[in-house]
């Protein structure tokens, strides 16, 4: 074999240790098979959501009154709904909605919660006391009730649903992050930053926030599954994503219940999709928590 630049590069690469992130991924999948199953479900769901327009066999919105309530078969693998829309295509497009709402809501909720938690711990004293009491009151509402109240005020639609799910998550994340931030506040580097005369906002954002990343990520992933469930619940009540957008919770509503006896596929498959997605996010979240925070290990 002739010595070419490519083969030399290959040799050089083979000798080098793998990049750190590749090694981290390999370690994670070796040590936590259940978490890897979760990660695979998430990755598949993301790919499906991103390439929905190419993957879906039919247009998710196209009605076909010729084949209303068709049973699963060679043409419509998972059957059709009361408007003749292909259930499988709607599930594929629904994964996009679930991802947008799930990621959006848990990112906004966890991030704002973390900011409030860190700031509350940093300022301490009366500010901390006041903020925590407000959080207590907010936590005493069930998640779904607070989300419903927000929807009742803001109205329905994807953006409002994201906000409605994010808001009840804020106090839950704030409380957890605050407890970690309390110990971070006592670290010498925070004193040093204060002595150096940095502004409060800089200390909170640049010095403390990066050090509460572990609880932040844990809360974020724990919220993801919950956000998808909440979105489905809100849409099922007719207070979430609105027709004709394809969303799993919405698919379970109305006709799916009315025609449940004759066309059970309409009620079964979207529920399976929800369960599978939440299952994946929960498995991954659990394993990530074990990996990042040994104190919280469920063993």
């Amino acid at each position, binding site marked *: 074999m002739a010595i070419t630049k490519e083969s030399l590069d290959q040799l050089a690469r083979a000798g080098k240790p793998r990049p750190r992130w590749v090694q981290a991924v390999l370690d994670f999948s070796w040590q936590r098979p259940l978490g890897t199953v979760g990660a695979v479900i998430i990755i598949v769901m993301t790919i499906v959501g991103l390439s929905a327009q190419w993957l879906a066999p039919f247009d998710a919105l196209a009605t076909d009154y010729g084949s209303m309530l068709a049973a699963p078969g060679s043409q419509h693998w998972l059957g059709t709904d009361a408007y003749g829309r292909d259930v499988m295509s709607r599930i594929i497009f629904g994964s996009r909605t679930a991802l947008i709402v799930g990621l959006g809501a848990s990112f906004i909720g966890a991030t704002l919660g973390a900011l409030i938690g860190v700031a509350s711990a940093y300022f301490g004293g009366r500010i901390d006391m006041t903020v925590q009491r407000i959080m207590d009151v907010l936590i005493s509402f069930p998640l779904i*009730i607070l989300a*419903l109240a927000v929807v009742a005020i803001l109205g329905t639609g994807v953006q409002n649903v994201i906000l409605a799910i994010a808001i009840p998550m804020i106090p839950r994340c704030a409380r957890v992050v605050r407890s970690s931030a309390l110990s971070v506040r006592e670290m010498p580097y925070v004193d040093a930053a204060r002595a150096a005369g940095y502004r409060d906002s800089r200390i909170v954002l640049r010095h403390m926030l990066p050090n509460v990343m572990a609880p932040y990520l844990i809360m974020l992933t724990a919220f993801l*599954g919950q956000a998808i469930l909440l979105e489905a619940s809100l849409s099922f009540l007719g207070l979430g994503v609105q027709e004709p957008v394809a969303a799993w919770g919405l698919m379970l509503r109305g006709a799916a219940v009315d025609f*449940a006896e004759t066309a059970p596929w309409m009620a079964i498959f979207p529920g399976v999709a929800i369960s599978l997605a939440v*299952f994946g996010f929960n498995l991954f979240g659990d394993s990530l928590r074990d990996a990042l925070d040994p104190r919280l290990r469920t063993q």
Partner: protein
Amino acid sequence: MLHYILKRLLLMIPTLFGVAVLIFLLLRVVPGDVVEARYLTQGSQFQSQDLMNQERKKLGLDQPIWKQFTSWMGGVLRLDFGLSMWTGSPITEEIKLRFALSLQLAVMATLVATLLAIPLGILAAIKQDTWIDYAVRVFSIAGLAMPSFWLGIVMILVMLIFFKWLPPMVFTPFWVNPWENLAQLIWPALAVGYRYSAVATRMMRSAMLEVLREDYIRTARAKGLWLKLILGRHALKNAMLPVITVVGLEFAFLMGGLVVTEQVFNLNGLGLLFVEAISHRDYTLTQALVLIVAAVFIFVNFATDIAYAWLDPRIRYR
């Protein structure tokens, strides 16, 4: 201990007062009121401003906010929540039956959940890393993933398709006809209880694993105690603490948060009433419901703390 209980009971008052102030202000900050909501549903937005103001005057919405608040608080102190702004009937009447239904469902779901969670959690812990353990864990993670309203739909479907039978759709109080009552409520209790048990099973398992590593368990084993006795008398009591917390939190949640499951099973519980009250901008009803749910939440928290002390004599409250 008695001193502590009294202190905690007294501390509930400022917390509930805070909740009352917050919900009162929040409702009035939100755009729209009950008068507007009513005309919007009747489809005639073009009602004269005068007529709407008259309605508001009748409901006392024209008075200054502090006056509205003090008169509401005065009523609450006498346990009189006033009239619903939407239906005009006394709120105590509106809530009474629904509260009974929600409470019964919450109790039944808790029974289902604990009956599943405690044995499964213990089993998974003592058979750690065997196929039994994995099966229990998958069963519980699946319970967390399945929406309980969907589980409800599937249950109804199975009964309908395979047994040609549907649970009764009208609520009968337990004291009127216990059989009818249970035939209706057992299904939502199972659907909700499964998810609830998933949370508790995971907690039971991890708490049990931790306790089984303690020195006193090793001592008990070393002196040759019967395994059942070790588990029942030494381990279970100590492992129950975190489980009770979880059960308490979930119970409080069930009292008001079962909106979707109530919808599926056609139950008129507190959750659906809450949604109606908010969308009607029915201030008085929403306020009453929020106070009741918050009171249940605070009381359950208090009860779990007392249960701690009872289970673990090392915990002494002052």
